[in-house]
């Protein structure tokens, strides 16, 4: 399908998206626009539909109605996960998911940009990845000393970083990061905020998080979801002062 001309500016464009599970409306007429290189924080109570929004964007769940456009022209609702990933959308799961029985290095190698077909991997074309890229990512996420360890042996926080590193290795245009600091210490949380802000600019980053100190540290526009729809959007101070946001989410 074709996008209207004014939408070409947006990297990710959701309009009027709704989806129901067994009659329960997880997303309700949701609209969201992310610009190229933009950093956006998404907050909202449990069950607000934050993860479901990411499921829609990455092709895991099909919306019942609404438009989901990438790069102003690609209709994401018609593509599967692998095609969407190839377009340049990477995703970190809410529950950290890495390849436990493989080394940190192999995890990143698997993620590194390059041909993804079975033939390419079987006949070794995929092996021509640049060692410098791998080292760069290892450095960025602070796992350089752990490159030879099995992912299963990493701490919870390190696994989160490894997964973020895998996103970086993928080098997508858009990163969807679901609760990156859950289970992290304060120091690790601060480090992660620094890491993500460094990434933004070259990549658009959408971060879902409940940790308000962390969201504040990101220093970006904030969207609050509630019952599958946007409740408030704007600078953090404005959103956290919003009456409805305080009522349903932040509390008094």
């Amino acid at each position, binding site marked *: 399908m074709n996008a209207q001309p004014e939408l070409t500016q947006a990297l990710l464009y959701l309009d009027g998206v709704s989806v129901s599970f067994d009659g329960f409306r997880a997303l309700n007429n949701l609209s969201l626009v992310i610009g190229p290189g933009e950093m956006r924080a998404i907050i909202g109570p449990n069950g607000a539909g934050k993860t479901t929004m990411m499921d829609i964007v*990455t092709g*895991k769940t099909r919306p019942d109605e609404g438009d989901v456009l990438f790069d102003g022209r690609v209709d994401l609702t018609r593509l599967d*996960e*692998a095609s969407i*990933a*190839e377009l340049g959308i*990477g*995703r970190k*799961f809410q529950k950290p*998911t*890495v*390849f*436990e*029985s*493989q080394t940190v290095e*192999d995890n990143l*190698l*698997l*993620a590194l940009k390059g041909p*993804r*077909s*079975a033939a*390419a*991997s*079987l006949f*070794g074309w*995929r*092996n021509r990845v640049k060692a410098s890229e791998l080292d760069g990512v290892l450095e960025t996420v602070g796992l350089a000393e752990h490159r030879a*360890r*099995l992912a*299963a*042996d990493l701490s919870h926080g390190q696994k989160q970083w490894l997964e973020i590193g*895998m996103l970086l290795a*993928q080098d997508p245009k858009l990163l969807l990061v679901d609760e990156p600091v859950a289970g992290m210490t304060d120091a690790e949380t601060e480090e992660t905020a620094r890491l993500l802000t460094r990434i933004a600019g070259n990549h658009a980053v959408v971060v879902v998080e409940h940790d308000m100190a962390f969201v504040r540290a990101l220093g970006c526009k904030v969207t609050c979801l509630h019952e599958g729809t946007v409740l408030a959007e704007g600078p953090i101070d404005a959103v956290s002062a919003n009456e409805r946001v305080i009522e349903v989410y932040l509390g008094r």
Partner: protein
Amino acid sequence: MIASRLLAGLDLKGRVFLAALAGLAVLVPVLNLAVPETSALHVPTYVVSLLGKYLSYALLAVALDLVWGYCGILSLGHGAFFALGGYAMGMYLMRQIGPRGVYGNPTLPDFMVFLNWKELPLTWYGFQSFPYAMLMVVLAPGLLALVFGWFAFRSRVTGVYLSIITQAMTYALLLAFFRNDMGFGGNNGLTDFKDILGFNIQAQTTRVGLFVATVVALALGYAVARAMVNSAYGKVLIAVRDAESRARFLGYRVERYKLVAFTVSACMAGVAGALYVPQVGIINPSEFAPANSIEAVIWVAVGGRGTLVGAALGAIVVNFAKTWFTGALPELWLFGLGALFVLVTLFLPKGVVGTLSAWSGGRRQAAPAGVAAAPAAE
């Protein structure tokens, strides 16, 4: 060059395994052909064929381990691929009988004459040619796996559901091959073979030749599987096993990766079946029995899933035990097998070889693999 690259990719147990196979390929023929029958060291010909049978099972186990151990596809239908390869070989052997059958018909196998058939069905065309039959040994199971896998993996059937439909597949084939009008010999199957490539199939030297061919096939099958799992492809396969959706969101077409492994594995199982048939002298529909496929899974579990060598050893050891048991205490075998499976699942979830390499690996490397059911993928 390929050989040296492969050797470089082998771990210790792989090298020991290939060396042991090379030893068997020399030792068994010598002990059978050169050592006089009166000597205690003589290996009787029936034992040579028995060993050959075990080794063809070992190849089936390696094939199964490729999909189950490295890609998490618990196929309970690999016996079907094995049997299809066996039937392709059996059809070649039937056509070799020629006019020497009971009814003396030069083209039609005896069972067709008995059924009053006038001409050879299309499915049997070409099977008088050895190369054609060998092609079918690989193609028939390969194509079935390709079609079956294409539908199953594309619709994302996984886990127990996939296992159940693989059982259904082999059961459906069991019923089909039982039917006389399918033209594969009905419930009697194919037997009374006379010769293979012009050699009398009963002759001592032929038996030894078949044994050596099986050893070579097992070594090659192992080498192919090892090369696959060591390649970048193998890393993706393991990634799919451990976190399928993670692999998908990284942009991998999981269904294609599975399909490649499943098809290669089925072809390998077909070769195993083709080597099995001339050594046991018969192929009939009971080879499609769902229980056969389940037994193969037990061999792999006992030896160690995701180790390849363990799968082969598991097949050999369990079948030794089976031969001994069914001789000594026939009615207890199924209980013994069941108990073995339960014990291994409870106390040795990585199987014998998996546990051994975890121990030795744990000493070399400070960090042991802490995950259950995640075999060391070296």
